[in-house]
């Protein structure tokens, strides 16, 4: 595995991140377990935030200045591991669609996975 390049660079930078994010979000909105949480959320704002967040998480050139992850999810009511796992699975599927290798998918999954307690407000 190449180590000089961040996962972000290997995935092709901002343009691919945007496409991955759209694919990811499309999957989330098509998932009956998750979709209700996004009914009142503005798609553009959310996609832009997720793209910014993913870029940072994948080691891209980033300063994520949104609300912190814990605060953003705390007001959604009780979220469980099933929600979190579903989100991680959609992220993996979206990365796979854009040609990421399994090692890279695992790397991204680990970065996102490290936020489990924050997202689930534990």
């Amino acid at each position, binding site marked *: 595995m190449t180590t000089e390049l961040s996962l972000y660079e290997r995935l092709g930078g*901002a343009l691919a991140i*945007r496409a991955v994010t*759209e694919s990811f979000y499309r999957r989330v*909105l*098509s998932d009956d377990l998750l979709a209700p949480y996004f009914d009142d959320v503005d*798609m553009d704002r959310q996609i*832009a*935030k997720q*793209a910014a967040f993913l870029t940072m998480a994948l080691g891209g050139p980033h300063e*994520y200045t949104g609300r912190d992850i814990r605060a953003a999810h705390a007001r959604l009511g009780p979220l469980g591991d099933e929600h979190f796992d579903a989100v991680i699975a959609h992220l993996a599927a979206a990365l796979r669609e854009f040609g990421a290798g399994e090692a890279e998918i695992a790397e991204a999954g680990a970065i996102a996975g490290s936020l489990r307690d924050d997202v689930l407000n534990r």
Partner: protein
Amino acid sequence: MRVTFEGREYELRPGESVLDGMARHGVRLPSACRSGTCQACLLRAVSGDPGPAARRGLKPAWAASGYFLACLARPPADLVIAPPGGTARIPATVERVRRLAADVLSVRLRPGRPLRFEPGQHLTVTREGGVTRTYSIASLPTATGDIELHVRLYPGGAMSGWLAGARRGAAVTVGSPAGECFYVPGSPRAPLLLAGTGTGIAPLLAVARQALASGHQGPVAVLHGSATRPGLYLGTRCPAPLAAAARGRTVTWRTCVLEAGEDIVSAAVAELGVLAAGPASARAFLCGGPGVVRRLRRQLFLAGMPLAAIAADQFAAAAP
């Protein structure tokens, strides 16, 4: 490299982005991701070229209107920039008001000086007393410079009611045309899907005609939705100006009446399936009531269209 902003000049260092350079001079422009994904730092180039990298990921309509991202812009030459919203106002007169239906007016305005616009964009109209409303341009550029609007007549409407009784020559002012609902050449084979409700069909008809006039080759489908059957004020058959512009290209006109159980959202998704082998190749234009435009956008996105390929204008009511 010099950047002119609100009348003052700022020097950029070699390789410095517009966003960073302006910040160094103490001008804090809106920004968030600083890497071209959030589009919070959107600006407009009034003159000069911000460079191709600065337009990465922008909707084609925006790029064509001079919009660019300050965080990515390393301009190859001097640049004059402005905040994304335009402010100049132009005097205009009411030329003609005609009823297209009991509650829809065709309003023709003559701007006092030539107005640069793309068919389908919208502009603000201000009448005596300062009442201001936004309307979409339903016409293509004409020799007289006149523009046509389709205005839904609301009971007690501060603007629509006034327009219904306006005399020829009545004075108004109009703002700079804005908005993303217009045809951008460059993908002549892309299937075009245009869906609008109520007077939202007016700008879409203009976009479709402009596309065909610009030599668009791909299939064009136009859907007009209305709550009631009489609301289909352009009729159930393809309007003559659109049919005449087809000239061998495939142009489809469909109507959906909500009270008859015909939902424009599912009709649009079905039409996308017919039009496009892969939804990623299509372009969509949506105009009309905010609720239905949001639903259309979401469902077309879920059907596989990239958001950047969907241009939408919500005809929101003015804040009371």
